[in-house]
C-alpha cells in the first residue's frame, strides 16, 4: 500500500476536554520496539467511559502489542499508560477489579474444567455476577466438567468471554474475540457486548478483522497504521464525511484549501493526478468537473487507512 497518512485526527493527539468525563485509559507517546523493529511509534490514544472502540489494523500492525501495553502486560521503551487515572504499572486492587481482558488465545488453563476455571477466577474478584455466568453458560451450551483442552475453539472462546464479563468490568479489552466463533456465536456475543455497554456504561475496546461485526456494534473505529492510531472517529460520521477524491493535483489542492478538508491520505496516480482521502465535517461546496468523488464503506476505509 503506497498511501501516506499525512494528517492525524484529534484522537492521535488528545487534548484535555473539560466537558468530557475522565477517560478510562490514556496512552501518551508510547514507543515499543521488538529489537530494532519499531511497533508503536509515539502512539497517543484515549478511551472514554462507555465508548465502544473497534481497533483495526493489518496483520502485524501491532494491535495485540498495543492492547497488551494498554493493560501493562508489556513494558514500553517510552511513554505512559494510565487506567482510571492510575499508572498502569502501579494499579491498585480496586482498579484491577475494574478490568476485563479476553486475550487472542482462548485455550488457556487447559487442564481446568470450565467450572474450575470460573471458581478459580471468582476467588480473586470482590464482585462476581453469578446469575450472568449461569445464564451465559446455559445459553452458550458450554460443558462444565470437561477439560478446557477438550472443548472446541468456539467453546473455549465463549468461556474466555464469560470469564472476562463475570466480574462486570468497567474497561473490557478484547483481542480478536470472535475469531473462532461461527456467525450465530458472533451475533450472540455482540448482543451481549452491546447489553454490557448499555447496562453498565462499560468502555470496550476490541480488535477484529471481521468488519461486518464492527459495523454492527462499534460506535467508534480506530485505525492503526505505522505504529500509531491514524484515525479514530464514530463509524457513522466516517461513512458520512470521508470521501476519496481523484483528479489533477492542482484541482484537488484548490478544493482542499477552499473547503477546509482534512487530508487523511494521498497517493499519486499517473500523469499529474492523485487520489486523496479527505474528511469534511461541513460537507463539500461543489466539485470541479475534473475531480471524481467516491463514498467509502468500512472495508474501503480499512484498505485506504491501514
Amino acid at each position, binding site marked *: 500500500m503506497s498511501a501516506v497518512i499525512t494528517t492525524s485526527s484529534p484522537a492521535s493527539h488528545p487534548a484535555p476536554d473539560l466537558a468530557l468525563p475522565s477517560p478510562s485509559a490514556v496512552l501518551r507517546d508510547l514507543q515499543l520496539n521488538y529489537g530494532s523493529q519499531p511497533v508503536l511509534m509515539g502512539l497517543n490514544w484515549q478511551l472514554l467511559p462507555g465508548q465502544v472502540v473497534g481497533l483495526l489494523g493489518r496483520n502485524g500492525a501491532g494491535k495485540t502489542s498495543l492492547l*497488551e501495553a494498554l*493493560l*501493562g*502486560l*508489556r*513494558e514500553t521503551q517510552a511513554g505512559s499508560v494510565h487506567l482510571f487515572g492510575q499508572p498502569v*504499572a*502501579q494499579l491498585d*486492587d*480496586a482498579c*484491577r*477489579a475494574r*478490568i476485563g*481482558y479476553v*486475550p487472542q*488465545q482462548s*485455550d*488457556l*488453563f*487447559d*487442564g481446568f474444567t470450565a467450572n*474450575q476455571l470460573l*471458581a*478459580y*477466577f*471468582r*476467588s*480473586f*474478584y*470482590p464482585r462476581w455476577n453469578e446469575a450472568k455466568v449461569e445464564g451465559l453458560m446455559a445459553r452458550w451450551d458450554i460443558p462444565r466438567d470437561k*477439560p478446557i*483442552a*477438550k472443548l472446541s475453539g468456539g467453546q473455549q472462546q465463549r468461556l474466555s468471554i464469560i470469564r472476562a464479563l463475570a466480574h462486570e468490568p468497567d474497561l473490557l479489552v478484547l483481542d480478536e474475540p470472535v475469531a473462532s466463533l461461527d456467525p450465530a456465536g458472533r451475533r450472540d456475543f455482540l448482543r451481549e457486548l452491546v447489553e454490557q455497554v448499555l447496562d453498565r456504561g462499560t468502555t470496550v475496546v476490541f480488535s477484529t478483522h471481521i468488519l461486518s461485526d464492527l459495523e454492527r456494534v462499534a460506535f467508534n473505529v480506530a485505525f492503526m497504521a505505522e505504529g500509531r492510531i491514524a484515525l479514530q472517529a464514530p463509524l457513522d460520521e466516517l461513512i458520512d464525511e470521508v470521501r476519496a477524491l481523484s483528479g489533477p493535483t492542482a484541482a484537488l489542492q484548490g478544493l482542499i484549501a477552499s473547503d477546509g478538508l482534512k487530508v487523511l491520505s494521498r497517493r499519486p496516480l499517473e500523469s499529474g493526478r492523485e487520489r486523496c482521502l479527505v474528511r469534511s465535517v461541513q460537507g463539500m461546496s461543489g466539485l470541479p468537473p475534473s475531480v471524481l468523488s467516491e463514498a467509502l464503506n468500512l472495508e474501503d476505509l480499512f484498505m485506504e487507512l491501514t
Partner: protein
Amino acid sequence: MSSPHAQILLAPWLERDKRTGWWGPALILLTASLPTLAIWAWTSAERAGVAALVTAVVLLQVLWSVQFGGLLRQNHPHAARLVPGHQRRLREAAVGLWLLLTAGSALMLGSMFGHTLAWGLGAAGLMLLIALASRAPLLWWPLALLSGWPGFWTRNELWLALRGTAVAAYQQQPLLLAVVMLTLMAWLLCVQMQGGGSGHQKVYDRNARSRQAMLEGATGRSTLRYQGHIGLALARGFGWPFRAWMRHLLARPDTRNLLARAELGLGARSHWTALALAGVIVLSGTVLVFVLLVSLNGLRLQDILVHAKYGLSIGLTCATVGSAMGLSSALYFSRREQALMMLLPGMPRGAELNRQLVRRRLGLAFTSWLLVSALVFTVVLQGDVNDPALAFLLMGMPAGLLLMRNWAAMGPPGAQQPMLLTLLLVPLGGLVCHEALRWLGLPSWLLAASMLALTLLIGAWLWRRLASYPQAFPVGRLG
C-alpha cells in the same frame, strides 16, 4: 548419493528445532558416554575401550531411529501420490542407509568379537524392528515386554526352535542365509513407505498426533487435548491431589493464600501436589521391587542395597533436580495464563512477585531434595557420611539456585535442556567429585560442607540480584 536422496536424509537435521540448537545430540552423546566414563574410572581402560565400541554401535542405532523417523515424516500421503518418484526415493534412501549402518555395526562388532556376518544380521534385524515400531508405536510394548522377560529367551520352545533352525542354517550356508534374510528385511523396510490413500492418511495422522503429544509432554505442556478416554481417565485419577488442594484453597480465599491460589493457574504438572504424588509412586515402586526381590529370589535386603546404592542415589537425585529444572518449561508455556494472572486483584508485581515466586519454588525444590536425600542417606547408605555415593546426592543441593534467574528474559526452553543439565550436574558432576575425593583421599563430609557453603554463598548473591530483574510474569516476554 544423488541429490534427492541427500536431501531426504538431511531433512531430519534441517527441520530440527532451531531454537533448541544442538541440545538433543549433546544429550544423547553425554548419556551414551557416561557408562564408558564410569567403567574407565572404576575398572580398566581396556574394558572402557570395549564399552566405547558398543556405545558407538548403539549410537548408530539411535542415528537410524532419527533418520527413519525423518523418512516416515516425509512419507506424507499427499506427497506419495502427487510428487513424482517421492515414494521410490524414500524407499531407496531407507534401504541404502540401512545397509550402510548394518555394515558399520557389523565391522565394529566383528573387529572386537568376531562373527562379522552374524553381527551384521543381528544389527540389520534390530534396525528393522526399530523401523517397524516407529511406524506402529504399539509394537514398542511387546518388544519392551519381551526384552525384559529373561525366561522367554531361555525357555520358550518356539523361540528356541526358531533360533536353533536359524543357527543351523547359518552354520551350513552363512552367505545364502544372509542374502535371503537381508532381501526379506529390505522388502519389509520398503513397504513401510506407503503410497498414499486413506489408510496411509489415517496412520500418518495418528503418528503425527502422538509425535506432537510426546513433544509437548517433553517440554512440560499439557497433552490433554491429544488424549482419548483412557488418557483422560488416567489424568483424572492422578490429578485428584491437585483437585482436592484446589477445592480446599478456593473454598477459603483470603489474602494469605492468594499466591497459592494463583499458582494453581500454572498447571497441575509443576504443582507440589504432582511432585508429592510422583514421589509416593516412585518410592512405593522401589519398595515393591525390593519386596519382590527378597521374597521371590531370596536375596538379602542388605546385599540389594549395597548393589543398588549408586543407582538409587543417582536416579532419585536426578528426579528431584529434573523437576526443579523442568519448572522453566512449565512457566514458559503458561505465560499467557500469567498475563491474565497479572490483572487479578491482589497479585503482587515487580520485585515482590520475583521474591515470592522464587521463595515458593526454591522452598519446594529444596524440600523435595532434602526429603529424598535424607531417605537415601539413612536407609540406603545406612547413615555413613563417608560413603562415596553421597557425592551424587550432594549434587542436587545447588540445583534449586537455577530458579533464581531473570524469568522475563528467558527464551523458549527445549525438551532436552533440563535433562542435559541434570545429567551434567548429577551423574557427571557426582562422578568427578567422587573421583576427586578418592584421588585426594578426602572424606565425603568435606564435600557436603563445601557444597553447602557454596550453595549459600551463590544463593545470597542471586537473592540480592532478584530485585533488579524485571517482573517475572509473563515469563519470556523480553526473551
